């Protein structure tokens, strides 16, 4: 009998709220974190992005600790983890692991040629020492699937009985490094991003952290992690497969492990970056699986693309969606702009959600799909 694994605590720090409740409230009211920013330190022209206000962050952080010398991202990560660690009362022993997911971590340290601080293991150590984790941190850095892949890694480690509990934090920050890079790819939208729309023309970047507790203890279970898979496209390093092969196979395998059919999925929280190729690829993969009639949204219209945080942040919001039996609007969508039909959620509505699917895809041809099941 394979062990069942659950998510028992969730939290997130985003421009539209420093806890899950305030994020959900803003999502219900269609309030997005995306704004036009004129920040020459980040980019030499005004650009749309979803950025956390520095003074709000410092104010919240001061309530947690008077210690200084933490980077912005470290503050965001500590704020995401702190309440769930406190609430969970999980012991920090050799059965509790800490997993950190990020793409670029403290890459801003390179701006001052502080290479030492840019190491991801150093970031993990800083957070681990702050809270006093006893085991060596595991850093997952697998492009834009990192956040959801971390959930899959945690589930696998707990199923193999190596740990009982895994605290995951996922985070990335909007930096000059990231903005200039996406811009060099001509992948940035000149307006707030519009996932799956005919009018979409690229990503809007965002920053956030999210944290969850993954546990074998069913007592406070919010949701069960029922199946997962991460299959590479083996096609291209900077663009998705035209046929959505890796995503198709990832979803197929995740469904098989969850022992359900595609028609049992009630909701899909997709990646939806609003680049022409990504959204088209997702529509093709979903159609190949017969998932075209399942309500789907991309939360990028609220948060932008938060890179290594996105998969976990969107999971946290989707869990709330399932618990409240509410489908949230895919903000920014107007007219369908993918070649295959998919059922974009156009307004908030009630729906019974027993199973939902979270997917992500990223550079390097990576894809991850996780099936979640409501615990009765």
């Amino acid at each position, binding site marked *: 009998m394979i062990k069942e694994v659950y998510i028992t605590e969730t939290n997130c720090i985003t421009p539209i709220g420093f806890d899950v409740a305030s994020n959900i409230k803003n999502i219900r009211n269609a309030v997005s974190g995306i704004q036009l920013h004129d920040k020459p330190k980040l980019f030499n022209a005004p650009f749309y992005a979803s950025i956390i206000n520095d003074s709000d962050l410092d104010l919240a952080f001061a309530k947690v600790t008077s210690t200084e010398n933490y980077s912005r991202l470290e503050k965001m990560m500590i704020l995401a983890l702190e309440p769930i660690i406190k609430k969970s009362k999980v012991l920090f022993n050799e059965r509790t692991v800490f997993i950190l997911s990020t793409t670029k971590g403290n890459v801003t340290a390179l701006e001052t040629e502080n290479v030492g601080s840019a*190491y991801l293991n150093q970031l993990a150590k800083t957070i681990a020492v702050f809270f006093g984790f006893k085991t060596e941190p595991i850093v997952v850095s697998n492009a834009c699937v990192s956040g959801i892949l971390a959930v899959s890694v945690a589930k696998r480690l707990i199923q193999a009985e*190596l740990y009982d509990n895994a605290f995951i934090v996922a985070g990335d920050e909007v930096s000059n490094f990231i903005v200039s890079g996406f811009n060099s790819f001509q992948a940035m939208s000149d307006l707030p991003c519009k996932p799956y729309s005919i009018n979409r023309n690229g990503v809007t970047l965002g920053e956030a952290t999210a944290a969850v507790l993954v546990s074998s203890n069913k007592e406070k279970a919010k949701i069960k992690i029922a199946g997962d898979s991460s299959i590479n496209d083996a096609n291209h390093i900077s663009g998705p497969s035209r046929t959505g092969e890796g995503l198709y196979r990832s979803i197929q395998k995740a469904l098989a492990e969850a022992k359900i059919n595609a028609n049992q999925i009630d909701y899909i929280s997709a990646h939806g970056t609003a680049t022409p190729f990504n959204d088209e690829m997702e529509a093709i993969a979903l159609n190949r699986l017969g998932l075209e009639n399942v309500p789907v949204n991309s939360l990028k219209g609220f948060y932008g693309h938060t890179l290594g945080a996105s998969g976990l942040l969107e999971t946290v919001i989707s869990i709330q969606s399932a618990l409240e039996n509410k489908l949230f609007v895919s903000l920014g969508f107007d007219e369908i702009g993918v070649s295959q039909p998919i059922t974009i959620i156009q307004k908030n509505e009630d729906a019974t959600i027993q199973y939902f699917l979270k997917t992500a895809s990223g550079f390097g041809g990576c894809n991850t799909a996780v099936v979640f099941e409501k615990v009765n």
Partner: protein
Amino acid sequence: MTADKKYIKSFCIIQNNQVWLNGEVVFETEPTVFSDFSKKTYQFLEMNYPKFFKMDNLSKLAFLGSELLLKTESNSLEENSTALVFANKSSSLDTDVKYQNSISDPENYYPSPAVFVYTLPNICLGEISIRHQLKSENSFFIFANYNPVFMEKYSNILLETEKADKVLCGWVEYYNEDYKAFLYLVDREGELEHNQEILKKLYNK
């Protein structure tokens, strides 16, 4: 789950201008820079894969190691579920620093998408997957040091839960001309037992 014994089918080390395969030096050069050493290793392996020269150093290192071990393994016509589980300490920092230098000076601002794409450590997994047509599980981890304990456990999970038939594991570290790759193929059959003591021993050779 079936906790049958697993085996290290083959292994290689690339460091200090030398290429070791299954414990023997198969290729070496006079002391030289990595760009030259990697090019000569590419020639030694008799590859015809021009994309190699577009890769960053971390991808070249991982790619050469995988070529040594998968050359005789993969048949692109066959469905192949060899998972990739890689890790290092410096992530893509070597390329990160190069990219940062291209955007630091407003007078000399030349961000390049061809460099930016390599500022993710898992790109090397994409390169290997494309070369060997591995539509399989892949993940990249970062640790402060080589971590045979995690690598052993995680690859065993993939085999025992049937998420993979074989696992290509790799510690691929590259920063500022300092490099070491240790790759090995974990299989259900073989002679050399797959455990952390042996992984430690092989790495330190």
